[in-house]
């Protein structure tokens, strides 16, 4: 047992003080957002350059890092916090801006042009001319509960998590709260599974608790497989302790001494951050034997996936942890009765666990006041695709799609026409523009044929072909079907073949009826969630975008200009300036022309790669 072990509330308070001094040091602090999205836009190089410049200016300041603030579109983000002043967040900090930024700090100057916003946490005087965090369109309608610390603390520091109130809920729980009391709070709060299906979390805990058997397990499902959703990655990378605290509270309530987290292999940084968090928690005695001298012991093991979408399905996930073949099996029995190694097992998703400490801290009543009648609290969505502000947003349930797309997302990219939002991953569906005022909660999304899923929200514009989208999802599911049951294995392949045929312009009358017929069979007879929901993207696109299918089948046209067999590229004689920019990127030398004169495109040579379309600054490449 190490001497660092936390026992009393006072021990925790001491660490809170230490954490606060790290978050708000007595000298200037420069932090860079270093989650995967930040790093891939160059955050690491920016941090290195800042460090060099700081040395050059002999500045006495602290360099730090944070997780993802959610506004990924504006990465890399750099935050400057001078003692006694608000924190200024600078957006799109490329390497060439760093020298000026640091020289400004040395001269106590603020570069208003580059500032995204200012965050006032402790001090009231604000900088004139820089919007407040809560006034920025992207953040205005958000309510951060699960993401409360993401981008605000250094995920490598357990002290900073404690400074934000972390592990106080756990301390409260282990010092006098009965397990039943905790389960009641979670039930009353109305928290539902954030992984997709939306089963009431407290209810799930109760079933596992009351299942027969001495040995039970909890699992954190971090196999975030839905393409287009990445909130779990951001939480694991940006605030791993919030998930861990939720798991420990859950373990105590259910009566479990071992937990697992199953993280997908595609998230190496998330695995590293969470593994480190476990180690820190063990050092402080927050994990391990006799936590806070309460007699309760708990440990967490990390299992990594190896790239299989079906492993997000709970039975397949369990099989994968057991080391066997990752195949689903019929339910019941449900994992709560017979799961990991046939013991009662409670599985919750990353975001669900991260909500738990706040609910314990602020109470069921507080939480249940947020959201709609049946869907309580907030939900994190990844707003991506053809939208101006891509990023992670956490909003109260019941907010409308239009608020998310237009107010938070800043509208459609390049002022194009909004066509649809895809939610729920490959199990979900496409919601058309006509339903833009739909309030977002579990029930309403299901009513329109889609589902909540893990929270991916892919925005599509007039240049997105809905038949192609259906083909894409079927291709994805065909690849990922484990092959165990016939309807899923064969049905998805057949559906994909039909849709691919339609995209090629070889569709026939009767194809749609056949598609609908197979879709219903796959839905009704598949073994697990993958197959049971596989038809949703097809059914919703057929329901809302039947005209696009008809155009492909009857007129051999792709109205969105996507399906390569049905489109051709040409040059607009009216707008072509003859700049020649499109000539070089063309891989087949299909474009020719003299400088400053109208260019021409040889249809025979064109492979329809779209490189010219991407390059032309005058919108002179026409896709038809």
């Amino acid at each position, binding site marked *: 047992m190490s001497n660092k072990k936390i026992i009393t509330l006072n021990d925790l308070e001491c660490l809170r003080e230490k954490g606060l001094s790290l978050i708000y040091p007595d000298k200037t602090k420069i932090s860079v957002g270093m989650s*995967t*999205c930040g*790093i*891939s*836009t160059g955050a690491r190089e920016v941090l290195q350059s800042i460090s060099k410049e700081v040395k050059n200016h002999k500045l006495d300041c602290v360099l730090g890092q944070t997780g993802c603030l959610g506004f*990924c*579109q504006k*990465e890399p983000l750099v935050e400057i916090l001078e003692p006694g002043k608000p924190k200024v967040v600078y957006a799109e900090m490329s390497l060439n801006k760093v020298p000026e930024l640091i020289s400004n700090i040395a001269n106590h100057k603020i570069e208003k042009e580059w500032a995204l916003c200012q965050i006032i946490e402790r001090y009231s005087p604000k900088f004139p001319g820089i919007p407040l965090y809560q006034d920025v369109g992207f953040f205005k309608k958000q309510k951060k509960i699960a993401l409360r610390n993401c981008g605000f603390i250094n995920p490598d520091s357990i002290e900073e998590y404690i400074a934000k109130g972390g592990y106080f809920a756990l301390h409260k729980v282990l010092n006098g709260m009965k397990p039943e009391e905790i389960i009641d709070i979670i039930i009353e709060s109305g928290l539902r599974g954030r992984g997709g299906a939306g089963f009431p979390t407290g209810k799930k805990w109760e079933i596992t608790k009351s299942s027969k058997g001495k040995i039970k397990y909890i699992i954190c499902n971090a196999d*975030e*497989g*839905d*393409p*287009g*959703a*990445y909130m779990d*990655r951001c939480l694991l990378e940006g605030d791993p302790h919030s998930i861990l605290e939720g798991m420990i509270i859950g373990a105590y309530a259910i009566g479990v001494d071992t937990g697992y987290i199953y993280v997908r*292999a*595609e*998230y*190496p940084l998330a695995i590293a951050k969470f593994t480190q968090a476990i180690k820190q928690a063990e050092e402080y005695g927050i994990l391990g034997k006799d936590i806070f001298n309460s007699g309760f012991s708990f440990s967490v093991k990390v*299992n*990594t*996936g*190896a*790239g*299989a*979408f079906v492993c997000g399905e709970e039975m397949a996930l369990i099989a994968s*942890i*057991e*080391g*066997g*073949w*990752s195949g689903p099996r019929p339910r019941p029995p449900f994992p709560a009765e017979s799961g990991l190694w046939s013991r009662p097992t409670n599985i919750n998703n990353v975001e669900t666990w991260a909500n738990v400490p706040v609910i314990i801290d602020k109470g069921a009543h507080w939480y249940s006041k947020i959201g709609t009648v049946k869907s309580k609290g907030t939900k994190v969505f*990844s707003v*991506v*695709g*053809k939208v101006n502000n*891509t*990023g*992670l947003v956490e909003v109260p349930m019941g907010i409308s799609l239009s608020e998310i797309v237009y107010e938070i997302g800043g509208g459609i990219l390049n002022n194009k026409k909004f066509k649809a939002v*895809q939610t729920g*991953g490959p199990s979900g569906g496409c919601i058309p523009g006509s339903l833009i005022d739909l309030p977002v909660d579990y029930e309403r999304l299901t009513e329109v044929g889609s589902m909540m899923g893990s929270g*991916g929200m*892919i925005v*599509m514009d007039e240049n*997105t072909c809905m038949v192609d*989208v259906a083909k*894409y*999802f079927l291709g*994805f599911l065909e*690849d*990922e079907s*484990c092959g165990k049951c016939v309807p899923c294995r064969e049905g998805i392949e057949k559906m994909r073949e039909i849709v691919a045929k339609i995209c090629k312009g070889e569709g026939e009358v009767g194809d749609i009826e056949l598609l609908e017929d197979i879709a219903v069979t796959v839905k009704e007879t598949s073994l697990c969630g993958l197959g049971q929901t596989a038809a949703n993207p097809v059914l919703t696109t057929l329901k809302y975008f039947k005209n696009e299918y008809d155009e492909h089948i009857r007129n051999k046209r792709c109205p969105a200009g996507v399906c390569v067999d049905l489109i051709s590229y040409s040059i607009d004689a009216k707008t072509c300036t003859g700049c020649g920019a499109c000539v070089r*990127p063309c*891989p087949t030398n299909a474009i020719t022309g003299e400088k400053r004169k109208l260019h021409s495109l040889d249809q025979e040579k064109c492979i329809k*790669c*779209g*490189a010219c379309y*991407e*390059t032309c600054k005058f919108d002179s490449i026409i896709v038809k």
Partner: protein
Amino acid sequence: MNFNKIDRILEKFSMQKSQSISILQDIQNEFSFLPLEVLRYVAKKLGVPFSLVYHLATFYKTFSLKRRGRHLINVCLGTACHIRGGVRILEKTERELNIKSGSTTVDSKFSLEIVRCIGCCSLAPVIRIDGDTHGRLTQEKIPRMLKKYE
């Protein structure tokens, strides 16, 4: 083949069958792929049928039975990447390297594979090469990006 490294990996996971996936991952990190003779050896050591180990090695997408090149290129084809032109990025990369996805260049420099979402959707379309993620790609950026790798 020298099986010392394999033995060390097996010992690290206490020869537990339930750790087979992690064991295979470590082996792949060592060799960049899963050689068949190693899979046979692992099955024997763990006391499980070869068919089970072979099944795991072929079921999970990150495992490869084929020797990979020095750099592994993963072109993301998640939904956001698809919508924002991921397929074209893939085709451009294929043309640049003169190989199809799922194969390795003749000089063993690059292996090209597709991946279903690496969770960098806000920067779509993206490619991951070894550990680095390249986002907001256009076809034009591909040659320059590839040049960075030796």
